[in-house]
């Protein structure tokens, strides 16, 4: 009989910081430039060159670590991680070993069982390596006739965020990555673009019989390039390890590579083949002192974190959990919504209505056009104004959609559009009464049907009034007045 196993996962996430220049030289970090155009003697690791720490990298890293609730070290230093590979021009990577920038953090994730806190072991700084393009069919170095090296990425600043082995399922790992990505986007330290490699993740996975305290032997999984990949890879790996144990085998400590196309992983190197990186203090960089002021400054730069903001939106604006989630999925979106919501609330319009218009109409249109909220042709204030016009009955919901479509194209204020198109809704009872009387007079048969009890005929009559008003009559009023007239005349 199959035993119940517990999966234990820790994640190592590498994030490229979106500073304008590299970590130890002045080269730009723009993605996608011609190979080897964003390089200098320093990031090429030429003999005699020395690294100089980019201060902006330090502030970005501090901010990210604070957002992960870490303790920032007072002194931090750099170390060399030594290994040979053609994408690493100095044959060592400047990283941090025993005095990382920050430690002892945690982030909160939403799981099916509610909120869960995931420990962050450490956050440290390091430089990125270059990129190799192997000239062979499979793109593998072993079979390539030659390989080309592009050092544009060499020296791009990275932070490595190492989690505690607190995650218990592939879904939790997914939730953790989602939460972490959100936090990093919120703190504006990275664009977290996985396709461009600015967010990368390795996973340490082990399994143990439920109830056992000791951790099982772990395998390290690499080469996963989407959150979905990571979830699949973890699920696959946990199943593989359980199968090994159930068959009476032993899980080997090894590094495995995920193959997304096949949906399987294979061993890359065993524990015995693991590198000895011979870490030692980087003599070219002095120990960095992180002053209280420096840390306090970054603390001040921290925006409200996504989870906190989600909860606040639910409470303050009465949004559903789902809507709050949509409205906080990026800092830009949250700012857009909150700006519109505030304006709406001050005009006594419900924030929920604004939310609906933003999440359904606007978001739908932006998505179809492949645009981000930050490039929305409609300003947040205009969205608030549009909802106000609808809630006040100045225009109908249906007219609202037409006005919205126009706003989206022209960027004009909703009131301007309403005026230009003469769309303003007729909410004058006397005027509507006149139209209703005319329609009743012109449609004796339907009126008779209504009176004989076939009340659904009212729909036809409302339609006639609306038609007569060229759609500008307030449908609610029409309905009400029509009913009054018909009922009174009995």
């Amino acid at each position, binding site marked *: 009989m199959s035993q119940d196993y517990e999966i234990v996962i820790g994640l190592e996430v590498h994030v490229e910081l979106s500073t304008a220049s590299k970590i130890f030289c002045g080269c730009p970090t723009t993605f996608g430039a011609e190979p080897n155009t964003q390089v200098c*003697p320093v990031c090429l690791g030429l*003999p005699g060159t020395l690294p100089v720490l980019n201060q902006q990298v330090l502030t970005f890293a501090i901010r990210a670590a604070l957002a992960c609730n870490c303790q920032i070290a007072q002194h931090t230093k750099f170390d060399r991680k030594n290994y040979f590979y053609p994408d690493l021009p100095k044959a060592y990577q400047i990283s941090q070993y025993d005095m990382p920038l920050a430690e002892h953090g945690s982030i909160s994730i939403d799981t099916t069982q509610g909120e869960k806190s995931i420990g962050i072991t450490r956050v440290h700084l390091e430089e990125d390596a270059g990129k190799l393009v192997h000239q062979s069919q499979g793109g593998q170095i*072993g079979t390539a006739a030659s390989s080309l090296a592009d050092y544009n990425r060499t020296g791009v600043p990275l932070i490595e965020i190492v989690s505690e082995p607190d995650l218990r399922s592939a879904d939790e790992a997914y939730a953790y990555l989602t939460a972490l990505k959100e936090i990093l986007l919120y703190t504006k330290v990275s664009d977290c673009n996985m396709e461009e490699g600015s967010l990368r993740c390795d996973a340490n996975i082990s399994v143990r019989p439920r109830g056992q305290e000791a951790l099982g032997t772990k395998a390290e999984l690499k080469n996963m390039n989407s959150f979905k990949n990571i979830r699949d890879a973890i699920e696959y790996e946990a199943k593989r390890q359980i199968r090994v144990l159930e068959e009476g085998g032993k899980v080997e400590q090894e590094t495995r590579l995920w193959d997304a196309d096949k949906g399987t992983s294979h061993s890359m190197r065993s524990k015995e083949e693991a590198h*000895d990186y011979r870490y030692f203090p980087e*003599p*070219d960089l002095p120990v960095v002192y992180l002053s209280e002021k420096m840390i306090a400054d970054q603390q001040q730069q921290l925006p409200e974190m996504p989870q906190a903001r989600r909860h606040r939106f639910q409470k303050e604006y009465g949004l559903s959990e789902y809507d709050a989630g949509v409205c906080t999925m990026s800092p830009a979106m949250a700012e857009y919504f909150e700006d519109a919501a505030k304006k709406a609330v001050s005009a006594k319009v419900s924030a929920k209505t604004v939310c609906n218009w933003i999440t359904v109409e606007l978001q739908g249109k932006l998505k179809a056009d492949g645009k981000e909220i930050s490039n929305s042709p409609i300003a947040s204030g205009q969205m608030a104004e549009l909802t106000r016009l609808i809630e006040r009955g100045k225009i109908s919901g249906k007219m609202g959609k037409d006005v919205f479509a126009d706003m989206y194209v022209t960027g004009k204020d909703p009131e301007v559009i309403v005026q230009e198109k003469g769309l303003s809704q007729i909410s004058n009872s006397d005027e509507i009464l006149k139209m209703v009387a005319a329609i009743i007079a012109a449609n004796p048969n339907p009126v008779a049907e209504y009176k004989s009890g076939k009340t659904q005929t009212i729909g036809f009559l409302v339609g006639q009034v609306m038609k007569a008003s060229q759609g500008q009559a307030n449908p609610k009023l029409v309905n009400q007045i029509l009913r009054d007239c018909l009922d009174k005349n009995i």
Partner: protein
Amino acid sequence: MRELSAKQIHEKIIAKEITATAVCEAALQRIHSTDSQVKAFLAVDEQGALAAAKAVDRKLAKNEPVGPLAGVPIALKDNLCTKGFPTTCASKILAGWKPPYQATVVERVRAADAVPVGKVNMDEFAMGSSCENSAFFPSNNPWNQECVSGGSSGGSAVAVASGMVPLALGSDTGGSIRQPASLCGIVGIKPTYGRVSRYGLIAYASSLDQIGPLAQSVEDAAMLLQVIAGCDQKDSTCTDMAVPNYTEQMQSGIKGLTIGLPQEYFSEGLDPEVKAAVEQAKQVLQDAGARLVEVTLPHTEYSLATYYLIATAEASSNLARYDGVQYGLRAEADNLIAMYKATRAQGFGAEVKRRIMLGTYALSAGYYDAYYKKALQVRTLIQRDFTEAFNKCDIILTPTSPTVAFRRGEKTEDPLAMYLSDIYTISANLTGLPGISIPCGFNSEGLPIGLQLIGKVFDEQMLLRTAQTYQSHTDWHTKRPILA
């Protein structure tokens, strides 16, 4: 011309008694006629030198201001990157490599209107004490061509001692400026770690390396130090402390100065003739008004072992980049690993390989604590020794090297004997303190003997003042070897 100091050459050029071009031509002529005997130069930059000299003359002709070293020929150790001009570290692995950038010190001497005439020999990657580890050829001691120049800045010392150039730049990781200066009978300064930018100095051991001047006289060395010292944005280990005027107080004497004599530096292994010359130098300084006191540096016996763990550990990492991928030598092979191995096997000499292996071992898992980490701890103890000694004295006096120049080949089979050549100079690197070697006599065979002074941190001024006082009472520094 070869009798003139850098200062005199500069003054004559400014006074338009002589042109920079003529000085440059004379230096090039001297190199042509002499270098075949002593082999200081790896590459002479005739065109570049003449162009630089002519530029100085043009400025002077237009009465434009010129730099403090205007027209003075200078030789550069071949581990200093020179833009567009071969920089090899005397290694086959870098043969033919032309840096696309200029070392900060090279930029500064050029900005001071000095005239770099070429790149000089050294032990491969500055690893050695005799210049015999150059992959190309050893340099010969101008006082006796059977003998070594000392090293690793052997070419720099020989170029100056032979009168080919009045100034040279070297680098000192464990004594590599002071020891060859001592063996060749000239002045060599290792400034405080962080006084001179290392940007563009091809690293051997980054926490120990420091660039410094070699010259015939203390005054000339001070002039060059003045030009190269000071803050550099490109080197974070270089201090932003202001640079004092080094020549200003040089003549003010040493009355009341306390000189410390570490007993550990005058014990076994010290050649009696060297000892006698250094004893005499003590007397000269005492007569000039200094007070002599005994001090103790109890951890001296561990300095050599400490040095060879820290320096090689750093070297093993610093030299890993010579992998055949981007520049320099690449051996053809079937796959990546084989290419790495063949390139490094062919490109590096025996001593470099020895040190890379030693350093790799010292940093390896399971050995790190016993070797590298222990060495760092002892380094702290040695630093403490000096701090305490400097509570009792202003400056420390020792021999520079335990012996005079030895015969070529004498120590090549015995690396440990070779390492002992730096026994007195290593501590200044481990502590970062400034040191100077000045000529203080000759042995019975006519080989020069050097006196070392070690100063307090960033107190190069005191070193220069003491050394200058000594030179004003002696004439050792005016002696010149006879070369055809």
